[in-house]
């Protein structure tokens, strides 16, 4: 197993240092990172926008939320009934905790809104007013016929779009952000997949390469767009450039990714309690540190990798706590943060966050084998950020709107769509790939995307040498495991839910594997 891990030779020198890395330079007055051991933050021009009468500095390419965070703002809004202070949480436009009024328009998600010179940003508190400015009627609605819509521009969506476009399909890829690459764009660690071309490459690089390839093969890329819903006959509604467009599609690959899990503990909504992905976005994409002292909740791969990335960015990780009696993530990652002097406390949970307006500390507590807190073991941890790395859930609202049959599979993180080996859901012509199909990691997402893109092309047009090879190659890298067998409402009979594992994944041993000939036989029984 260990042979799959690439040793981070070039980073070794940092392991033995105290958490504050010399190479990371923070400008004292703000939270922006100017020098980083791996990342190069290519900031655009400096400009100012207005926040409640004050001038706030921003750099071209920064979101409103990041610029405000860098300026020191922690309370982004006030909650609706309890009027509690709220900060951002997910930083990728999923949770809506960062909504503010921008140029008179209330309820704008500032984490996915680019800052612009002269913009007027205000917190609207618990009861936002009706728009104070005439925001017009919106441009006229359009309806367009397209062949394939790919929803989500992460590794799964990009791969699906690339494969179907290079075979000659008219492919449109929709993503909310201004940058494609999904969560890859914030992965500074090297991938150690068995997949030859990706091993040893950092996530950020893989992301860039995929985006370039997608452009080269003629994928129509729609960034900063919102896919609002699914309607009959494979129509989707999309908001782009202030216009509502209805795309009448022949086939869809849904690769909408995942949502970070939240955790219940006292004061869990205080500004300073952030999702691990949110912290990564802020730190590795926007170049802004989340705080000075971080308590990491969860020691799975995300928890330990983000802890290490925090150390790289010059942030002190005071402790990692884990509810399970053992560390969840790969030992190589855990060892790195341990060597940097970060304690990992297993069989521990968080009891409460301390603070009025923002996090000023936390109380952690031991738990016994029945997950019950042990009285008298409470202790305070000094921190200004509580980072939640407690898993992800597939974002499947779109698929449920499309009436795809779903099943709850704990191993995959929640409700996932039933699908074939070729990633087709129970709706003909609607495919799924990546975390939306079940929580895995980027390599699996890319391979699933490859399969989905090729299979959809075959469905709509014909099998080509390339689609056949793409599917074959991708399936070679995956080990499908049957987790459930269900009779579907359509007339195709039994349908297995396949969990795709990367070859060599540790967890495989825990689930029994059925021979692939078995899964093939039941697809259209």
């Amino acid at each position, binding site marked *: 197993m260990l042979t799959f891990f690439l040793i981070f030779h070039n980073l070794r020198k940092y392991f033995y240092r105290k958490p504050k890395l010399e190479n990371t330079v923070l400008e004292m007055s703000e939270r922006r990172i100017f020098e980083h051991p791996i990342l190069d933050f290519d900031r655009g021009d400096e400009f100012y926008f207005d926040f409640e009468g004050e001038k706030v500095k921003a750099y071209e390419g920064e979101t409103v939320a990041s610029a405000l965070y860098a300026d020191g703002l922690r309370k982004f809004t006030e909650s609706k009934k309890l009027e509690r202070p709220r900060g951002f949480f997910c930083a990728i436009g999923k949770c809506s905790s960062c909504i503010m009024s921008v140029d008179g328009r209330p309820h704008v998600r500032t984490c996915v809104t680019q800052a612009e010179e002269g913009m007027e940003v205000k917190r609207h508190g618990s009861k936002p007013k009706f728009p104070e400015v005439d925001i017009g009627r919106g441009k006229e609605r359009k309806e367009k016929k397209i062949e394939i819509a790919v929803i989500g521009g992460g590794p799964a969506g990009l791969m699906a779009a690339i494969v179907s476009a290079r075979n000659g399909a008219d492919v449109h890829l929709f993503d909310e952000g201004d940058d494609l690459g999904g969560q890859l764009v914030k992965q500074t660690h090297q991938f150690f997949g068995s997949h030859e071309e990706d091993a040893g490459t950092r996530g950020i690089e893989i992301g860039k390469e995929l985006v370039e390839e997608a452009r080269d093969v003629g994928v129509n890329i729609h960034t900063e767009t919102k*896919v609002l819903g699914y309607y009959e006959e494979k129509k989707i509604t999309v908001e782009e450039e202030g216009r509502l467009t209805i795309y009448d599609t022949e086939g869809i690959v849904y690769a909408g990714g995942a949502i970070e899990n939240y955790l219940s503990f006292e004061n869990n909504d205080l500004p300073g309690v952030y999702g691990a992905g949110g912290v990564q976005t802020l730190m590795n994409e926007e170049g802004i540190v989340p705080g000075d002292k971080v308590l990491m909740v969860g020691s799975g791969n995300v928890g330990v990798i983000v802890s290490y990335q925090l150390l790289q960015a010059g942030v002190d990780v005071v402790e990692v706590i884990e509810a399970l009696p053992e560390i969840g993530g790969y030992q190589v990652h855990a060892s790195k943060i341990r060597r940097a002097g970060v304690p990992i406390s297993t069989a521990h949970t968080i009891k409460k966050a301390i603070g009025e307006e923002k996090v000023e500390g936390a109380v952690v507590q031991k738990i016994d084998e029945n997950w019950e807190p042990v009285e008298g073991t409470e202790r305070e941890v000094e921190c200004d950020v509580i980072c939640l790395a407690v898993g992800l859930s597939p974002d499947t609202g779109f698929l449920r709107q499309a009436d795809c049959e779903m099943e709850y599979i704990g191993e995959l993180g929640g409700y996932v769509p039933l699908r074939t080996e070729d990633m087709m859901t129970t709706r003909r012509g609607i495919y799924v790939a990546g975390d939306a199909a079940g929580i895995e990691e980027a390599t699996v997402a890319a391979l699933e995307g490859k399969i989905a893109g090729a299979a959809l092309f075959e469905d709509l047009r014909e099998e080509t040498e390339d689609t056949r090879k793409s599917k074959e190659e991708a399936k070679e890298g995956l080990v499908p495991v049957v987790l459930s067998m269900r009779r579907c409402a359509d007339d195709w009979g039994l349908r297995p839910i396949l969990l795709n594992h990367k070859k060599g994944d540790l967890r495989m041993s825990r689930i029994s594997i059925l021979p692939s000939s078995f899964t093939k036989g039941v697809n259209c029984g």
Partner: protein
Amino acid sequence: MTTVVCRCEDITEEDIVEAIEKGYDELEKLKRHLRLGMGPCQGKTCLPLARRILGRETGKSVEEMGDPTSRPPSQPVSFSLLASLEESEVDE
């Protein structure tokens, strides 16, 4: 003491436990009674947590809890967009 489950609609763990005691023991019922998952994030953050609480309080399996219906729009959208006209209806 506040433990929030649904950030958008400000629903606490206490609210949910209380509602379950009153008999709102499925996710769809909790949604209709408390507006759980009906805010701008459309249940993306709270549903997994609510499922866990419901399981703990009632011993129900995930299948028994049900899954609330998902409807468009999946994301916040402005009224002006919804009020926009069809191309043919626009006066030149």
